[in-house]
């Protein structure tokens, strides 16, 4: 079954790379929806159903942790798997994201295999 994915990152380059990586990871992709920051991501979620969210942490307007907390507090979206993909590598940030309900955490830079590994068991 095709998976609709929301990619949230203020870098267009990373959004393109993640699309490519999802294809390389043999994810059965349906629609790929992009958002530049947390607020835009929430607008997209209000308009579209998705089966997976990949999100950066450091973004303007609304960062990834606030987005994560907002999604997990919403009955409509709380079960959607979310993987954080970010340069933030400190243990504190990782724990914070997992405590807020992230299903996985990948540090940039990353390989396609690392993303694939995180997706196993999630989708």
């Amino acid at each position: 079954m095709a998976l609709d994915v929301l990619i949230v990152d203020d870098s267009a380059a990373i959004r393109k790379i993640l699309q490519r990586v999802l294809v390389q990871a043999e994810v059965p992709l349906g629609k790929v929806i992009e958002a530049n920051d947390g607020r835009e991501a929430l607008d997209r979620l209000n308009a579209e159903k998705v089966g997976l969210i990949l999100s950066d942490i450091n973004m303007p307007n609304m960062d990834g942790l606030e987005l994560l907390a907002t999604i997990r507090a919403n009955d409509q979206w709380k079960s959607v798997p979310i993987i954080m993909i970010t340069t933030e590598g400190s243990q504190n940030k990782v724990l914070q994201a997992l405590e807020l309900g992230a299903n996985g955490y990948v540090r940039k830079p990353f390989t396609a295999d690392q993303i694939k590994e995180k997706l196993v068991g999630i989708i």
Partner: protein
Amino acid sequence: MQKVNLVSNICSATEEVFSMMLDLPITVGEAYVEVNHDESFNGVESLIGLAGAWVGAGRLSCSTALACRLSGALLCAKYEYVNEDVLDAMAEVTNMIIGSVKTRIEDDFGPMGLSIPTVIFGRNYKARSTGGGDWTVVPFFCDGDRLDVKICLAPGNANSHQGPRAQPSAQHVL
């Protein structure tokens, strides 16, 4: 006072990005400390701020040709000149390298926030970050083209008497 090995962390972070995201070969040159840099520059420069108990910035500088090459490697595309894709790709390469350095040095310098990168390109310009501190510069070479990765850190006002002083350590130059 403990010397923090900025040079080694810059090398590791840069080599990691080049191997994992760009698949391009690089070699490292001899690191040095840059004081009162006043030369004008031609090419692409990307800056990112660091703020916490220590404040400063990270910077990547290279020629437009190398910027196009790095962007092409990142995005699996070919760029003949600097455009929005190249600027965005250089911003992200800077984010990954300096972000990785930040994570590595936070045990010594305390937690730091990372700003959104700013990318500048053109000919015959000068860029300056105010706030004190010298720049630790590590030059890298990708098939003969030079990429400078630079970090400048100084204690924030409230902690001017605390913490390690960032200096390059010659024994860690590769």
